[in-house]
């Protein structure tokens, strides 16, 4: 695997609402089993398992065995690296301002 192209995998992994939802679920509570994750998503066990594999291939999810269980952990580092790559110290201010403006406008609605 060429690690130089890993950004592509991360963007691809993030380009799906179910996979983003799975990351949010692990962010809220880390180290969960497939069964726990499956119970909160409207999808078959097979479907959730497939999405988790895509996240794992992108390095966004890391699995560990704990006895008979396989636990899923969120690895946020690849997202941080994309942040570092695209949002440097020169643009962070204006990006934060636009994000704030969007939040305010949406709250007004």
């Amino acid at each position, binding site marked *: *695997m*060429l*690690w130089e192209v*890993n950004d592509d995998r991360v963007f691809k992994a993030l380009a799906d609402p179910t996979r983003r939802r799975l990351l949010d679920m692990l*962010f*809220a*509570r*880390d*180290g969960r089993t497939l069964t726990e994750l499956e119970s909160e998503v409207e999808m078959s066990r097979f479907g959730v398992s497939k999405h988790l594999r895509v996240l794992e291939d992108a*390095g966004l999810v*890391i699995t*560990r065995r704990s006895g008979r269980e396989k*636990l899923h*952990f969120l*690895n*946020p*580092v*690849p997202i*941080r*690296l994309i942040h*570092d790559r695209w949002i*440097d*110290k020169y643009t962070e201010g204006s990006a934060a301002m636009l994000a704030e403006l969007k939040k305010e406008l949406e709250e007004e609605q």
Partner: protein
Amino acid sequence: MTGTTATATQIYQVFIKASPERVWEAITRPEFTAHYFHGSRIAIDAQRRVSFAPDGSVRGDGAVIEYDPPRRLVHEWLSMYDPDLAAEQPSRVTWEIEPREGGYCKLTLTHDRLEGAPKTAQSVSGAGWMFVLSGLKTLLETGEPLSA
């Protein structure tokens, strides 16, 4: 990143284009850690891991549990810079360095045994280790510290 419920185990992983020996050196020697570990000068040998703030005060001190250069390092973690954190139970940090194709290393950091250290878990989760590991990668791949 706020609002996370820090759990008893946290795992972080990053691919770094450097040899295992260079990664090991960057983790264990103070002249390297000063560039990416919140300015801390961290010295690690087979017995202890001691971390100093830029002003010379001790930020952390803990026993080294496993010392297997350049592949595996396990040490205790106890933050001393804050009385609330220093009062908690020591937790454990494991660094695993695996060489990969193309001159890359897979670096996996596991911070566990955090059951008795909820405030520490909160302080290192989210941006904490993420910032350290992305800074370490930048330092090794470009030779420059990450601009803060």
